[in-house]
């Protein structure tokens, strides 16, 4: 247990560290030379430094409370929505009726912590965040010619890694260095689906894992940040000796291999027909790798550098994304742009969180545990930009919307049969499951700010009219739907209405809502039709697709 006096001390300790120049913001950019001892086991003073960098939930609360809008005092209603919030954030779905009943019946003050532990231990935790990271990669992969990319293997691999709590640096190392066939070595997806294209991989590696947008520097020095064109191409040179082969139709058969020779050429801007300049692989800090190195060495060095403990952006990029999903907004928005010219919020909390994540050896579940056990999280504090106090709550991701429908109204996931290629139809697109269709409508690039992925008419049409979904909004006893069984079991209208709210919105109905439902049932004079309307309205509510 945390002793009462400790948080303040911790906060002071953190602030002292920040004052001593550990701040990793724009003032101290990371091209500070790498520590020579990086590969040597941490020495005793370093171990102590790591310990002091670790945060407790209370220490994080203290950091957050000092920020405008960060006080948990103001967020009064939060505990009621805690279970739904934590379930979506950790395992990607709303709690079932049973889970809600168990949580409500539990009286111990430990129940919040216990819930977080239960959710972190669930296999669904890995699957949920695998969806998130696959989306983060997939939304920016240019569709290759004649190949349908399959993220199934990567999702499965990532889900297992995340569930067994593999440290983030190890996962990233695998993604950057993997070789082989995607079906057998799913980590090869990142390089393979980018067709091993060095410029593409330079931009995406830096964007996804470091939150640095150097893509602009491909053609010119970055207009706002400090990236130079040569830095971009030095990064691209790490991928000079990796090749990918994407077969027709089946993305899973993509193969990533190393070749023995070849160097990367930076295109000649003045005259693109002329041969470009040969680039040595190089990090942003100016260190260059010798020419002629093998692919293994190049990508291995790149992974070392990306995941180095003194590379502040590695931990900052990760914590920024997790914070955005769990606290409603990233310290930086959009979450993949931590550039010098950006104006982050709550930088002290971000710095402390990144240091904590580094000190724990990139322990992912620990980071979630830390955030989800804060008072701020429990009470539903939502980080907002001071200029945008009325910002909308986060919307659920596409996979979460499907999960909400699956849990809430038992929407089945139907996959049509696969069409095999024939002489006439050589490239049949893979069939779309119900989940795929929901993702088509509700999915969005997780790197976009919510304002850049607005609600759409396609989403409204899906909820309003989709035949498969509407089949579940059927009160007729012979339909066998969740609604029909609920109405048969709960003859009392209020009881039925309460259960519907718990199942669909994972919360208790308010008195006002019960009154509106009463009126509707009375006006219509048809219990079944009235409850069909009610269920339709809940599924089509703004709340159903929001994280609150």
């Amino acid at each position, binding site marked *: 247990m945390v002793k009462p006096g400790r948080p303040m001390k911790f906060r002071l300790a953190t602030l002292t560290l920040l004052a001593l120049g550990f701040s990793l913001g724009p003032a101290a950019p990371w091209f500070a030379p790498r520590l020579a001892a990086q590969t040597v086991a941490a020495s005793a003073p370093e171990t102590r430094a790591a310990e002091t960098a670790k945060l407790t939930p209370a220490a994080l609360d203290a950091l957050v409370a000092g920020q405008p809008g960060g006080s948990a005092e103001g967020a009064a*209603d939060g505990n009621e929505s805690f279970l739904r919030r934590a379930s979506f954030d950790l395992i990607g779905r709303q709690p079932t009726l049973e889970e809600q009943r168990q949580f409500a019946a539990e009286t111990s003050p430990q129940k919040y912590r216990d819930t977080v532990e239960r959710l972190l231990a669930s296999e669904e935790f890995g699957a949920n965040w695998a969806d998130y990271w696959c989306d983060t990669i997939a939304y920016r992969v*240019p*569709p290759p*010619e*004649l190949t*349908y990319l399959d993220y199934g293997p990567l999702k499965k691999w990532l889900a297992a890694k995340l569930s067994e709590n593999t440290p983030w640096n190890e996962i990233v190392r695998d993604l950057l260095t993997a070789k082989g066939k995607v079906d057998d070595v799913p980590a090869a997806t990142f390089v393979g689906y*980018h067709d091993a*294209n060095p410029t*593409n991989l330079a931009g995406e590696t830096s964007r996804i894992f470091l939150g640095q*947008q150097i*893509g*602009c520097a*491909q053609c010119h020095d970055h*207009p706002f940040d400090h990236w130079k064109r040569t830095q971009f191409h030095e990064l691209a040179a790490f991928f000079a000796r990796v090749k990918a082969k994407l077969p027709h139709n089946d993305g899973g058969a993509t193969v990533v291999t190393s070749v023995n020779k070849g160097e990367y050429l930076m295109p000649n801007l003045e005259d693109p027909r002329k041969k470009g300049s040969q680039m040595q692989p190089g990090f942003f800090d100016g260190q260059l790798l010798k020419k002629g190195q093998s692919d293994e060495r190049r990508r291995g060095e790149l992974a070392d550098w990306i995941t180095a403990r003194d590379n502040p952006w590695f931990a900052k990029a990760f914590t920024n994304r997790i914070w955005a999903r769990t606290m409603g907004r990233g310290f930086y928005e*959009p979450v993949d742009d931590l550039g010098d010219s950006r104006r982050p919020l709550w930088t002290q909390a971000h710095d402390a969180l990144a240091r904590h994540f580094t000190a724990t050896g990139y322990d992912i579940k620990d980071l979630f545990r830390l955030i989800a056990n804060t008072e701020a999280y429990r009470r539903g504090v*939502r980080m907002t930009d001071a*200029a*945008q106090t*009325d910002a*909308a*709550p986060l919307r659920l991701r596409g996979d979460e919307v499907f999960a909400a429908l699956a849990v809430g109204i038992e929407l089945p996931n139907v996959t049509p049969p696969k069409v095999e290629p024939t*002489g*006439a*139809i*050589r*490239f049949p*697109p893979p069939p779309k499951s119900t989940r795929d269709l929901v993702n088509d409508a509700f999915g969005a690039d997780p790197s*976009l*700010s919510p*304002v*850049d*992925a*607005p*609600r*759409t*008419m*396609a989403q*409204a*049409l899906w909820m*309003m*009219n*989709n*035949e498969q979904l*509407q089949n579940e909004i059927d009160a007729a006893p012979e339909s066998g739907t969740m609604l029909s069984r609920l109405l048969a079991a709960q003859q009392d209208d209020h009881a039925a209405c309460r259960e519907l709210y718990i199942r669909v919105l994972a919360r208790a109905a*308010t008195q*006002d*809502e019960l009154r*509106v439902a009463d009126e*509707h049932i009375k006006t219509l004079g048809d219990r079944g039709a009235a409850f069909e*309307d*009610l269920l339709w*309205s*809940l599924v*089509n*509510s*703004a*709340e159903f*697709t*929001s994280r*609150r």
Partner: protein
Amino acid sequence: MRCEHVILDVDMSPEGVTSRRGFLCRSLAAGLGATGAMRLGWHDLLVAKADELRKAGKSMILLWMDGGPSQYDTFNPKPGSKYQGPAHAIHTAIPGVQVAEYWPQTARALHKIALVRSMVSSEKEHDRAIALVRTGYPLSPAVRYPTFGAVVARDRERFEADLPSFVRIGRPRITTRDVDAGVLGVRYNPFKIDEAGALPPNLAPQVEADVVRRRLALSERLDAEFAGAGGAAAVAEKQAVYRRTARMVLSPRVGAFDLSDEPEKLRDAYGRTSFGQGCLLARRLIEQGVSFVEVISTGPVGDQGWDTHKLGFEQNPLLCNEVDPAYSTLLADLADRGMLDNTLVVWMGEFCRSPKFKPDGGREHYSEGWQVGFSGAGVRGGQVIGATDADGLKVTDRPVSVGDLFMTFCQVLAINPAEEYVTADRRPIKIVEHGEVIRELFG
């Protein structure tokens, strides 16, 4: 050209503009910029004239020949050349101009078409060529450029039409090469109809319209609790989207998707094919205020479409027979209804075919001397622009670039090509980078 920044509804921070959606860089012609209307951008002038423009209602139909049609078998036959193959050339409504024999009806309608025979581009692979000629930009791993229909949809959004501004009819033959709204955002993606005659998925309510209205009203009432608990912005956004969606779902204009009330004779004239009925649907949608419709021709069999590497002698007549009646009937139908003056009809594919052919008539990709047919919206039909040599190897007169094509589209649809939108990674992109309007079209 000078560039003037007109800031509309934008969040400013010390670093500059933080909300990309409101940030619009308007280029003004030098002459206009020097006048007193300094702060009044092109777009503002357009909004001021919105009613007028709406009445003008310039729309566009793109007839997309997916795969790259053979110029020898369509609109630029080379009788007497060893590269021509078996297709004869026939006379047309324009004296001295011939087309391939598979186009008898279009030949008679050529007075409505301005034929550009001298398109030149650098892309000979499908994915790269499709990206180029549908977005105006080369395929880029960094930026997913929007297809032109999405640009039009974004521009026409302010009119708040019942039906979506951008509709696509038919399926691309190979979906990995598809283009969409890209960096403009999903809201400008095309409304997709796989097969004319059927409603797009999720458009038709599964219950009576009255029940839909009743449910919408109940749903809005039940949004109140969430609105009061920090969800006000989400509720406002949701309700705005639902009102727009309901307007479409419940609109009588949705009837445009149902072809059954068209006279049988007219349906026959378009051809009882996917493409033929698609063209008829395109006319009906334009009639109901849709701004951009593309109809995809992939031919009657398989996914080879117009990409006739194999069996060209056998496939080309089939492909042409599907498009000839549809294209010519569409032009006649639009003209009969007085709609041709306000509708730009464009016939094109991503490139053309090689002069050399295999024994079965298969031809490879070729990107010099491909063709575009323009009709309507002020285009002077009955003319040919540009030419290739007697064998169709080289463009010999008036080469036209993809940039020229897009400049021309913009001019007709009253979209400022120099307008810039800003991507999520703060990259400003012009609607069209460079090119010249094809002036002869309007002479």
